[in-house]
C-alpha cells in the first residue's frame, strides 16, 4: 500500500523542520539575506548541500519518530502500577532481535554513505571551467585580502565577484592562504566553509546566482577579534564587475587639496603597514588603502565607511575593535582631520 504523499514520514519531518525554522525568524526568499542561513542557498555548492541535508533529515527524522515513539510507548505502557510488588518476567535477550537492529542500521548507513560520497566528489572535485574567475584569499588577523592575479588588482575585506547563471556559468574559484594563523572562509548562502591554513593552500568555488551583498564571517578561531572578522561578498552584474575592476586597477588619486593629510600619512607610521598605489606608501602588513573609499565598511565590516567612523577608527581602533592589530598613533585632532581628508580622496 502506498501512503498519500503528505503522510510519508520524510515529508512530515521536512514540514516540521521548515515550520521550526519559520518560527525562528527565517525568511524564504531568493538572493542575499540579512541572516546568512544555510537554508537560503544562492550558489550551486550551497544548494547541493541544502538538498543533501533534507535527504539526511528525512532519514534521521524517520529514525527519530520510530525510536522515540517506541520509547514513549514503553514509558507509558510499562509503568509500575500501585501496590504490585511482584517482579516482571525476566527476559535475557534474543539473537534474532539483535540481528534485526544491527542489519537495518547497516543498510541505512550504506545509503547515507553513498549519497554523501556523491556530493563530496561533485563539489570538491568539480573541474574549473575556462570562464572562471580566480581569486586568492589571504586571511590576516583580523581582515581579508583578495588578490585577483589575472586582473592584477588587490581588494580588501569586500570581495567582488560576477554573478553566474545556469546557462553560462561563470564561477569564482578561491585559493585560500593565510598570512598568520588559521582562519575559515564562511558565507553560508554561497558555500560551506573551508579553512585558510598557513603552509597548506586550499581551494573552493562559488557561483552566485543572484546579485547583492552576501554576509558571512571567519569560521575558525583566530585570536582576540575573531568575532569581528566579518565577510562581505558583492555579487555584481558583469558590467558592474568590469567597472569595479577598472577602478581598482587605477593608481591612487592624487588630490592636491589633501596634500597635508598625505604628508601626515607618509611621515607618521601609517605607510609602514599600508599601501597606496602610486605613492611612497608600500606597507604590506595592513590592508591596501588605494581605493578605500570604494568600500562600504571599515575594519572588516564592523562599521559603515563614514567620515566620522573613519576618523574615530584612526584615532583609536580599540573603540570599534578592541585588540585589533592597528595601533592608535596618538595623532593630534588637526592631524586626524587632515589624514581623514586625505583618505577620503582615495576613491
Amino acid at each position: 500500500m502506498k501512503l498519500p504523499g503528505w503522510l510519508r514520514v520524510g515529508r512530515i519531518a521536512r514540514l516540521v523542520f521548515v515550520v521550526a525554522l519559520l518560527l525562528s525568524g527565517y525568511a524564504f526568499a531568493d538572493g542575499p539575506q540579512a541572516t546568512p542561513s544555510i537554508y537560503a542557498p544562492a550558489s550551486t555548492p550551497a544548494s547541493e548541500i541544502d538538498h543533501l541535508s533534507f535527504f539526511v533529515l528525512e532519514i534521521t527524522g524517520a529514525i527519530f519518530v520510530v525510536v522515540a515513539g517506541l520509547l514513549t510507548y514503553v514509558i507509558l505502557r510499562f509503568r509500575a502500577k500501585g501496590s504490585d510488588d511482584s517482579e516482571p518476567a525476566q527476559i535475557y535477550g534474543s539473537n534474532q532481535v539483535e540481528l534485526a537492529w544491527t542489519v537495518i542500521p547497516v543498510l541505512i548507513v550504506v545509503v547515507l554513505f553513498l549519497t554523501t560520497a556523491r556530493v563530496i566528489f561533485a563539489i570538491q572535485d568539480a573541474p574549473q571551467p575556462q570562464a572562471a574567475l580566480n581569486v586568492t584569499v589571504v586571511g590576516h588577523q583580523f581582515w581579508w585580502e583578495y588578490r585577483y592575479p589575472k586582473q592584477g588588482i588587490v581588494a580588501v575585506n569586500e570581495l567582488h565577484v560576477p554573478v553566474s547563471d545556469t546557462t553560462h556559468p561563470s564561477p569564482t574559484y578561491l585559493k585560500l592562504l593565510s598570512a598568520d594563523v588559521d582562519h575559515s572562509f564562511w558565507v553560508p548562502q554561497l558555500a560551506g566553509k573551508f579553512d585558510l591554513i598557513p603552509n597548506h593552500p586550499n581551494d573552493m568555488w562559488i557561483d552566485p546566482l543572484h546579485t547583492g551583498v552576501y554576509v558571512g564571517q571567519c569560521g575558525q578561531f583566530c585570536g582576540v577579534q575573531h568575532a569581528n572578522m566579518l565577510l562581505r561578498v558583492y555579487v555584481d552584474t558583469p558590467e558592474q564587475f568590469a567597472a569595479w575592476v577598472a577602478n581598482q586597477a587605477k593608481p591612487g588619486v592624487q588630490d592636491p587639496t589633501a596634500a597635508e593629510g598625505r604628508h601626515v600619512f607618509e611621515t607618521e607610521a601609517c605607510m609602514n603597514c599600508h599601501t597606496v598605489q602610486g605613492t611612497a606608501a608600500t606597507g604590506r602588513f595592513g590592508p591596501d588603502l588605494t581605493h578605500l573609499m570604494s568600500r562600504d565598511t571599515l575594519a572588516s565590516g564592523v562599521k559603515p565607511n563614514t567620515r566620522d567612523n573613519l576618523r574615530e577608527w584612526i584615532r583609536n581602533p580599540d573603540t570599534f575593535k578592541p585588540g585589533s592589530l592597528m595601533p592608535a598613533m596618538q595623532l593630534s585632532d588637526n592631524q586626524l582631520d587632515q589624514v581623514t581628508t586625505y583618505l577620503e580622496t582615495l576613491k
Partner: protein
Amino acid sequence: MADQTLPIHGSLDLTPPREQENTWLDILHDWVITVDHKKLGLMYMMMAIFFLLVGGAEAILIRIQLAVPDHHFISPQTFNRLFTMHGTTMVFLVGMPLVFAWGNYIIPLQVGARDMAFPRLNAFSFWLTLLGGLFLYYSFIGGPGLYGTGSAPDVTWWAYAPLTARAFSPGNATDYWALALIVTGFGTLGGGINIIATAISMRCKGMTLMRMPLFTWLLLVDSGLLLVTITPLTAAQIMLVIDRYLGAHFFDTQAGGQAYLWMHFFWIFGHPEVYVLVFPAFAIASEVIPVFSRKAIFGYPAMVAASVGIGFVSLGVWAHHMFTVGMTSAGNAFFVLSTMLVGIPTGIKIFNWVATMWGGKIRFHTPMLFCVGFLFQFLIAGLTGIMLSVAPWNWQLHGSYFVIAHFHYVLVGAIVFNVFAGIYYWFPKATGRMMNETLGKWHFWLFFIGFHVTFDTMHFAGLEGMPRWIYTYPADRGWAHLNLVISIGGVIQAVAVLIFAFNLFWSLFKGKIAGNDPWDAWTLEWATSSPPPVYNFATDPVVHSRRPLWDLKHPEDPDWKYE
C-alpha cells in the same frame, strides 16, 4: 548494622571499631593520606562537582555577554579566556575525574574486591589530577600574559597551531594550559591502568568476564581507550612546549612547521575522548535502567560487544573534525563512512536499553527520570552526529552553533544527566542516607526544561549561520532572539543545579536513613553496609551469575539457570 540484614552472610566484620580521634585536623589528615578507593572516589567526585560549578559559572558569564547583540558586559579578551577555560575545565577537570570517581568507588565493590589493584598509584593519580586543575586556574591570577598578569589561556580548548606559537600567544597563558594538561594527563593514565588491572585481576570467585557487571565492563573498555588516546595528547603538548621554549618547529608555520600536524594529534585524542567521557554515562544507564525496570539487562553479550566495538571504531574517526581543512575527497569519504559506522553499535545499545524497559514494571524515581531523559537526548545527539558526519553538510555546520548544540547534547544531555542519575542512585550507598526525592524531581524537571530551551535553540542559531567562539554579533544578523532564549535556558539550568547542590548537603545530614539495599538492586555493592566498611567485604563473595543478589533473593528462580 546487623549482619543478618545483609544478603551475603558474614560479609561484615562485627568486632567493634577502635576509638577514633575526631578533631577536624585528624579528619583532614585522614582524607589527605588515604589510599582507600572509596575516599578517593568521593574526592574525585567532589573535585568534579566543584569544577562543574566553576565551569558552569563561566558558561553563565558567556551567556550573559551573548544574550543581546553588541553587548559590552565583558571584554573580548575575557570572553575568549572564559570559553577556553569552560571547555578545558569541563573536559579535563569534570569529565575525566568523573570517570575515576565512578571507577574508583563502584568497581571494587561490584567485583567483590577490597580495593583497587594499586591503591597508592590511585592516590598519586588523584593528586596529580587535582593539582593540574589548580595549576590551570592559578593562571587567572599568576600567569603574565599579553594583557598583564592574570591571563588565563585564550586559544580555545583545541588550541590550534599556530595560534599557540609564541609569535601569536606571548606570555605564559598557553604554557599554563599545556603544562596543566600534561600533569592531569599523567594522573589520568595512572587511573586508567588501575581500573584495567582491577577489572582484570581483582574479580571475586565465580565472576568470569562474562558475568562482570556491564558498569565495570564499560569502564574497562573506557580505560583501555583512554590509555591509547591520552598518549598522543601528552606527546603533542610536550612538542608544543619544546616549540615555545627550545625553538623547535613542529607546529611553527612561520619556520616551515605544520599546523595540520597539531590537528591530527589533537583529534586522534579528541574524538575518542568524547567516548571516554560518555562511557561512564552508558555504564550508569546499564545499572539504573534494569534495576528501575525490574528486569535483567536485555542482550548482555550484545551490549559487551557493542561497547568494545564502539571503542575500536572510535579510534578511526578523528578526522571528521577536519572536513573543512582541505583533505582529499577520498579522505573525506573514508571518515564519513567510519563515523557513520559508530552509529551501529551505538544504536544497538539504545535498542537494548529500550528492550530492557519493555515488559518491565518501571519505577520513576529520580535516577530513572534522569536515565529516561538521557535516552531521549542521546538518541537526538546520535542523529545530529549522523548529520554532522555528512561531510558536505559539515562544511556548513562545522564551527557553528549547531556543533555546539550537538556536543552539549552528548556532554550535558547524556553525560551530565546520567551523572545526576548515578549520584541519586549511589548516594545512599556512599552516605547511608537517601537524597530528597521531592527536591530531586524539581531538579530533574527544571534541568530538563532548561536544557532543552538552551540546546534545542542552539541548533537553529547554527543553521542560521552563527559561528562559535564569537564574543559579540551584529544586531542585523537576526540571531538576537535565539540568543536571548539560549541564555534564559542557561539560567534555568543554573537554578536546577543549585537545587541539586542544596539537596546534596541537606540529604547528607537530614536525609532518610537508606539501609543497605534501598533500591532492591542486584549487584555486589548492595551486599555490604551503607556506607561500606573500609575493607568492603569481610569474606570474599562468591557469585554464580551476573546478578548475585537476584540469585539470593530468588533462590527458586536464579539467573545462573538461564545465562
